[in-house]
């Protein structure tokens, strides 16, 4: 009798162990255990920059199979978006040289059947099967791809475009379309947050959340007088970012006057609401789309805020369509400055993305191209300087992309240095 109970208990434990991972795992891509050290590259080319290494025994999710390459993701990643990929690896490195086949077209990667792709979620089924830029580029060598960049750009960007244009979150009022909570509480908490947000008037800067108990000091100096302490999760209005410090204001303040600030806090401890929630939950959680969605539209000059250098232009769109759900996915931008030289027709365009962490380099190129499309004037040679959210608007840009008048990218580089202090 006793041994029978023991057997049942062991069986239950085993069942739990086997069932749990599949029950909680995201239902896309395929999971591989790497059998040796594998290079993860920035783009699906052998000569692309190596962005990280996978160790033997490490498990990753792979998807977007194309021409022998696959995008790899963290196992906890729930969103099937190439923007979320760690990078690209050769499929043969994942399978340790074995050939494999994936049932749909984008898996021409490899040859014969080993396993089938996990079923897609309803949302993914509704989407056009995310061919993304890989489908366009991967068949070509890096050099060819560069040469043909202009022609290929359209489909490349289209994927990112729609997201960039239709799913961008409001820059000032963070819309929590992505909830860290799930189930019943999710809906109510979303409602409560929306109510709270409605009380926050629109104004300058950004509404951000304190990541932890955060000291607000009299000056941009750790030795200066403590003025107050923000509690974790407290919302504040943030502006005047300089040297890793941000001026924090009462969210109700709408006048952009530094003397009205409560004080200064370390910029790296101020997050967007979505980031804060994701950090609280330990992983990004996909949310259901809002029911009261309106048709998507691109708003130009939606919120003109005054800047020392002039008017800031906000390009944003509301997360509205059913597919448009995630603030994390949404990438919007704000034009900070435009300097045009009439004689040479050279224009320096400084923009700030609404993300704090840099996208993958391919995604960044696609985003840059999309911005160029929206902002360039005929015959202009544009140098696009891309900053990330909460970086000093007058400081060094994260990435620089130079375009010819015909839209071809001539130069593209980025600076990891500016991320060292949290991208401030």
């Amino acid at each position, binding site marked *: 009798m006793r041994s029978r109970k023991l057997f049942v208990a062991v069986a239950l434990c085993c069942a739990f162990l086997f069932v749990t991972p599949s029950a909680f795992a995201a239902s896309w891509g395929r999971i591989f255990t790497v059998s040796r050290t594998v290079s993860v590259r920035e783009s699906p080319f052998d000569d692309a920059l190596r962005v990280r290494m996978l160790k033997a025994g490490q498990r990753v999710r792979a998807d977007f199979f194309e021409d022998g390459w696959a995008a790899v993701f963290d196992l906890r990643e729930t969103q099937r978006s190439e923007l979320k990929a760690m990078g690209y690896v050769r499929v043969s490195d994942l399978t340790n040289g074995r050939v494999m086949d994936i049932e749909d077209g984008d898996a021409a990667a490899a040859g014969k059947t080993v396993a089938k792709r996990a079923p897609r979620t309803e949302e993914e089924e509704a989407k056009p099967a995310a061919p993304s830029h890989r489908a366009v580029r991967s068949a070509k060598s890096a050099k060819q791809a560069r040469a043909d960049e202009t022609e290929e750009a359209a489909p490349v960007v289209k994927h990112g475009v729609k997201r960039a244009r239709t799913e961008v979150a409001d820059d000032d009022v963070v819309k929590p379309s992505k909830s860290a909570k799930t189930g019943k509480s999710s809906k109510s908490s979303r409602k409560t947050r929306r109510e709270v947000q409605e009380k926050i008037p629109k104004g300058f800067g950004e509404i951000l959340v304190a990541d932890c108990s955060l000291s607000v000091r009299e000056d941009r100096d*750790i*030795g200066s007088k403590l003025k107050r302490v923000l509690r974790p999760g407290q919302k504040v209005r943030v502006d005047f970012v300089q*040297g890793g410090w941000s001026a924090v204001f009462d969210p109700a303040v709408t006048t952009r006057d530094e003397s009205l600030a409560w004080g200064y806090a370390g910029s790296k401890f101020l997050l967007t609401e979505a980031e804060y929630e994701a950090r609280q939950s330990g992983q990004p959680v996909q949310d259901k789309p809002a029911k009261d969605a309106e048709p998507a539209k691109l708003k130009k000059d939606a919120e003109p805020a005054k800047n020392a250098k002039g008017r800031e232009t906000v390009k944003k769109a509301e997360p509205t369509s059913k597919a448009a759900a995630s603030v994390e996915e949404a990438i919007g931008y704000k034009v900070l400055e435009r300097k045009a030289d009439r004689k040479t027709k050279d224009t320096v365009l400084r923009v700030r993305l609404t993300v704090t962490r840099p996208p993958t380099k391919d995604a960044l190129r696609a985003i840059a191209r999309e911005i160029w499309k929206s902002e360039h004037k005929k015959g202009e040679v544009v140098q696009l300087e891309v900053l990330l959210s909460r970086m000093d608007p007058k*400081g*060094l840009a994260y990435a620089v992309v130079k375009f010819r008048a015909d839209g071809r990218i*001539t*130069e*593209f*580089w*980025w*600076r*990891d*240095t*500016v991320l*060292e*202090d949290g991208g401030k």
Partner: protein
Amino acid sequence: MGVRKSSSHHPLWGAFIFLALIAPAFSSSFAAAQPQRIGFVDPQRVVDSTRLGRKAKADLARFIAEKDRMARDGAAELAALRRAAEVPGLSAQERATREEAYRRKALEHQLLLRENERDVKSEEAKLLRYVMRRADDVLRDIGRKGGYAVILIDPNAVGYVDKTNVDLTERVARELNSRGK
């Protein structure tokens, strides 16, 4: 012998008050009399030994590689134009047109190389400035807390440095690394 209860009549009370009043003046003059400390920081070592500096170097290397790629592409185009101009059997007019195209491209290429060189220097300066601005914050803190009146950062301006006592480079690097975390 009776002790007086009221301290206001104590004969030494006046002296106590007097000392209390002049003590701050004495202490400040003692502090002023302390020898002012002088520190030295080697910016190159700060760049070499900090995470921020190493990232800046990697960024610069990437920038130079991008410029080199452009130069290589330009050189390849130039070589192609030259080959096209030297093809045998061309008419005099066609050859002249091709040679003109080659000359124009050669000038553009020279210009590009000069621009690249200038851009690399400019980028190097920008990145170094970025790193040193972070280091400046650290220097200011160390200077204030450690009582340093002067911290030198130009090795050429210093004849002799007693590294054991004066060199703050490692301290600055350590502090800078810890702030970046």
